[in-house]
């Protein structure tokens, strides 16, 4: 019983954070619902009711977009036509499709944060990973078995992301350059590199005016888990879960992982104990970038099928929210990624169906991070007893290496 209580208590702050953030989001929706609010003079109750109805409509659309309608799923399974089943379960599968890159990037951010490095560059690392995979696939097209092309492209993509993550790690270790600035700058540079690459006729889709790459699905494709029309869920999801296990193993059961975490807790003590702090920084950032690159590779080789400028869609920042929400634990990352995947997929439906712009979710996510990082706020709002933030999260203050490093 106490175990359950422990788990519940740990989950209290994140859950309340999400709930409170959604509440704030609802308030914003109501406050900007001018159509209804303009009727407040003539018909106050109706106006407020209409505004609240707008919120319920929006959030309801979000739920349905994320998980689908249970009744529909049941009837589809009974009737048994592929079409029906596919349409009914598509929301859930789409949520899982959205969850996959979030798991990868959430793990990426969590690893880097654990080592005391703020990796804000997951976007850029993802894009470069995707670019590496795309170029490899296009260059190898038709010259080898698709599975071979797939594996090689995945490896190249992962390595590309790793290199892009290594650069800020290296700069921080050798020159003390603050990784927040370098990773953000590399994000912009990565976008420009991809833009530049997409100008090349080899890579660009034939006859297209917008910067998109050729469609990679004919060349190679990550195998799907469920073979139904229009269902995109593929084994990238499985690999993501495996990566969570791998990262957990690395961090908590290997010496290297211990060094990484030690560097994050107290750089000076770690160095005193003989661990190479600079090496830990570089390794953490490289692994981080590699995970993000893997995300991009799987997206471009599997679920999305082609490279375009908006592939990452600001996922790097979501990943930060994720990692913090999960207290930097890989298991938590998977759960939080599921939540965010649901929010994202649902948010798109919300945008389409109820006209509430998807960007509200960025605002909500920012609030989530804020509430998780400052539990005192939750305490004052809800009058609950909350523990102090976990030490891993609170002690993420970047410590610069001293001269003798």
């Amino acid at each position, binding site marked *: 019983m106490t175990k359950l209580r422990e788990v519940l208590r740990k989950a209290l702050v994140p859950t309340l954070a999400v709930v409170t953030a959604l509440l704030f989001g609802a308030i914003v929706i109501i406050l900007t619902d001018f159509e209804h609010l303009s009727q407040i003079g003539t018909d106050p109750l109706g106006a407020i009711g209409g505004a609240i109805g707008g919120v319920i409509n929006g959030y309801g659309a979000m739920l349905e977009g994320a998980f689908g309608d249970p009744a529909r799923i049941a009837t589809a399974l009974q009737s048994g036509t592929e079409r029906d089943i596919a349409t009914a379960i598509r929301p859930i599968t789409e949520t899982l499709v959205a969850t996959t890159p979030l798991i990868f990037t959430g793990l990426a951010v969590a690893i880097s944060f654990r080592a005391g490095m703020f990796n804000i560059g997951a976007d850029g690392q993802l894009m470069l990973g995707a670019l590496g995979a795309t170029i490899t696939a296009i260059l190898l097209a038709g010259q080898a078995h698709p599975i071979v092309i797939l594996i090689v492209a995945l490896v190249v993509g992962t390595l590309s992301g790793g290199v892009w993550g290594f650069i800020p790690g290296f700069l921080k270790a050798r020159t003390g350059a603050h990784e927040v*600035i370098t990773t953000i700058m590399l994000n912009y540079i990565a976008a420009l590199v991809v833009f530049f690459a997409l100008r090349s006729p080899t890579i660009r889709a034939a006859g297209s005016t917008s910067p998109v790459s050729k469609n990679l699905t004919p060349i190679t494709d990550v195998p799907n888990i469920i073979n139904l029309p229009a269902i995109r869920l593929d084994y990238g999801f499985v690999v993501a879960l495996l990566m969570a296990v791998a990262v957990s193993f690395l961090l908590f059961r290997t010496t290297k992982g211990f060094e990484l975490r030690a560097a994050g807790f107290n750089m000076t003590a770690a160095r005193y104990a003989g661990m190479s702090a600079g090496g830990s920084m570089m390794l953490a950032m490289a692994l981080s970038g590699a995970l993000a690159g893997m995300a991009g590779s799987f997206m471009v080789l599997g679920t999305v099928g082609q490279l375009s400028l908006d592939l990452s869609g600001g996922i790097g920042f979501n990943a930060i929210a994720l990692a913090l929400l999960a207290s930097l634990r890989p298991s938590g990352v998977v759960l939080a990624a599921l939540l965010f995947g649901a929010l994202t997929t649902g948010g798109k439906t919300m945008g389409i169906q109820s006209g509430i712009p998807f960007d509200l979710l960025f605002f909500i996510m920012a609030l989530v991070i*804020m509430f998780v990082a400052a539990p005192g706020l939750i305490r004052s709002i809800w009058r609950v007893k909350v523990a102090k933030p976990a030490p891993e999260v609170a002690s993420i203050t970047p410590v610069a290496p*001293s001269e003798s490093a």
Partner: protein
Amino acid sequence: MTTTPGAPGEPAAPPPDAEVATGEGLAARRALRNARIRGVAFVGFAVLAFYYASRSFDISAAFSFWIDEQGGESAVLQTPVGVLWVVAGLASGLVGVLQLLRGATFRWRPWLLLLIAPWIAAILAELLAGKPANLTGMISGSLELATPIALAALAGILSERSGMLNIALEGKMLIGALSASIASSVTWIVTANVLAATVVGVMVAMLTGGLTGLLLAWLGIRHRVDQIIAGTVINIGAVGITNFIFLRILSRSTELNTPRTVEAMLIPFLSDIPVLGPLLFSARPYVYVGYILVAVLAYMLFRTRWGLRLRASGEKPAAAGTVGINVIRIRYQALFLAGLISGLAGSYLALATAGKFEMEMTAGKGFIGLAAMIFGAWHPVGAFFAALVFGFADTTQTLLSILGVQVPPQLLSSVPYVVTIIVVAGVVGRVRGPAAAGQPYEQG
């Protein structure tokens, strides 16, 4: 923000270059070795310049300056490109020789600033390949583009000097831009007075920026949220809420997003100075505000008691607290002021540059402002010149793409970002930031 040694428990801060260089021991030898490498690098650049010179004596570069007013008569400076390269080469060679002779005590950074001008002139001329370029337009354009970056840098300086890491500049500018546009449009609709609309727009922008600054301070001080996380939260939240408002409200009610644009303002007497007048004194009022703020802030930081207290709070808050300085209150003040300035910068983007609010229109300028701050060694004047360099890079890119020079636009667009990384990595020299930046202060 680059190197923050000196915190309790950390090894002591490295002494400045000059001290180290004259001493004995490992540090001195390393400084000497670095100095020699620098010297060789300078000489290497000189050789490169002479090589380019030998290839380009036949091409002639034409730089024109406006004399009395923008768009009026112009004076043209014509020289073979080779001459420019020779000048750059001679300058680099000189600096290289001086560096090698004087060793580690040589103050090379001011000389580097001197070198930048001939090199840029030469590279520009080379890229232009004979097409004429109006330098007045370029430099005044740089000033205009540099202004929001400079303002952001000033905001950053205020925050960091007080001990608070402020990476939320981007978010504050964005919120400022949105508020400025809406406020100005609304005022215009109500009063049809351009001046009122602009003033209200700016005021509202500054207010929202200031409030956001207070939010950052509150999160970092009261709730001990890590300042980087708090800053990132504000940035993400700002993007989300501004995009949301833009899509939800402004795209439907476009009259709320049509502020009066701010026009260029000629300073009565100074703008008549030949060449310099159209260059420096015929810009939009924001640029003048920029000049004034740089001067005011430099004065406030270094010549007033308040500034001293602020800097103390950033360097050794524990000592400052012992002497009776209210570190917490100073940090709140600093972040509020920083927010005001960031809001001002945002309003510039909306009212002057684009003429309305566009989604994510800050495009990293807040972070480039942070780089300018580091480049300028946390000093207002230094940051201003650093911002000028960034502004110039931006202008050059526009100019070259207008002239159809065969350089991929992405390459040029990436220059500000690459330069930022180079600066932050300390290739241009490592500078020491306020020692206590980023550490929460425990009062009592």
